């Protein structure tokens, strides 16, 4: 089982990150798995023609799929005993097929709530053009030591 961070071990300012390449095959598989009923509306996610039909230069990644990558960042970091309470994301720019992205997390606050160790994080995706297409906040409960 993965490493387990404890509430007492983390501090505001701590950072962590993962990387993700928005591969066309993976986007197509995600759309097929989750958006099978979206029909032509899903074209902007899967084809150049579909993207251009709505004024985009390249096919894009569904917002919720990009949010899943930020969620993966948090669940990988929080260990098996961590609990993700909420994740709240704003979509600022499209993520395009082929984008190489960094998923980053920054601890902004730690607080004991009714005995639970609650950690607040800023999370965001950064592309190789220096843009942040997704930004958000996650709230996680970490186990206590002892």
């Amino acid at each position: 089982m993965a490493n387990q961070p404890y509430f007492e071990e983390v501090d505001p300012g701590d950072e962590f990150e993962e990387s993700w390449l928005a591969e066309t095959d993976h986007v197509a598989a995600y759309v097929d798995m989750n958006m099978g009923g979206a029909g032509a509306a899903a074209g902007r996610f899967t084809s150049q023609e579909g993207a251009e039909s709505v004024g985009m230069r390249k096919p894009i990644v569904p917002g919720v799929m990009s949010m899943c990558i930020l969620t993966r960042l948090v669940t990988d970091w929080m260990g098996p005993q961590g609990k993700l309470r909420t994740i709240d994301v704003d979509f600022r720019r499209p993520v395009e097929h082929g984008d190489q992205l960094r998923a980053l997390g920054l601890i902004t606050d730690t607080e004991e709530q009714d005995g639970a160790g609650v950690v607040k994080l800023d999370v965001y995706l950064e592309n190789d053009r220096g843009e942040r297409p997704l930004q958000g906040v996650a709230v996680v409960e970490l186990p206590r030591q002892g």
Partner: protein
Amino acid sequence: MTTEQPVFEYDESIIGKEFELGSQEITRERIRRFCDVLGETNPLFTDDEAAAAGPYGSVIAPPGLVYSLQLGQGPDAKVKFGQATFHAGERAELHDVVRPGDTVTARQKVKEVFAKTGRSGTMVFVVRRTEFTNQDGVLVAAVEQSMVHREVNRG
């Protein structure tokens, strides 16, 4: 930000009405496929043996699998404003885990429709809330999705 409200139309009677979107069994195979596509390597989601020794006693579904479920067409607020619609934000609350063999049911309502006018123009926001329950009626997750309608500057 100004306080002047723009003129837009929508179906006010839809606010707060709940619609069942459908149900789906979350199979072990579906969890495996989701993990392959999203690059999940967390043993809680991918490794039956390791997960059996973990806090839940079995593999569980990644949170993203649950809030990615699109089980049907939701209620339409019939907003008449602007020429473009885009996805502005998403807020997920995770209440309980989903295990292989659980059946998840989604219910959705339009929570609110409101306008904002700022430097970049007027935008109309439609907020939908979807709640996911398991076969025992336990709330496992909820998602609030914000869609924005706006006018396109053709100048």
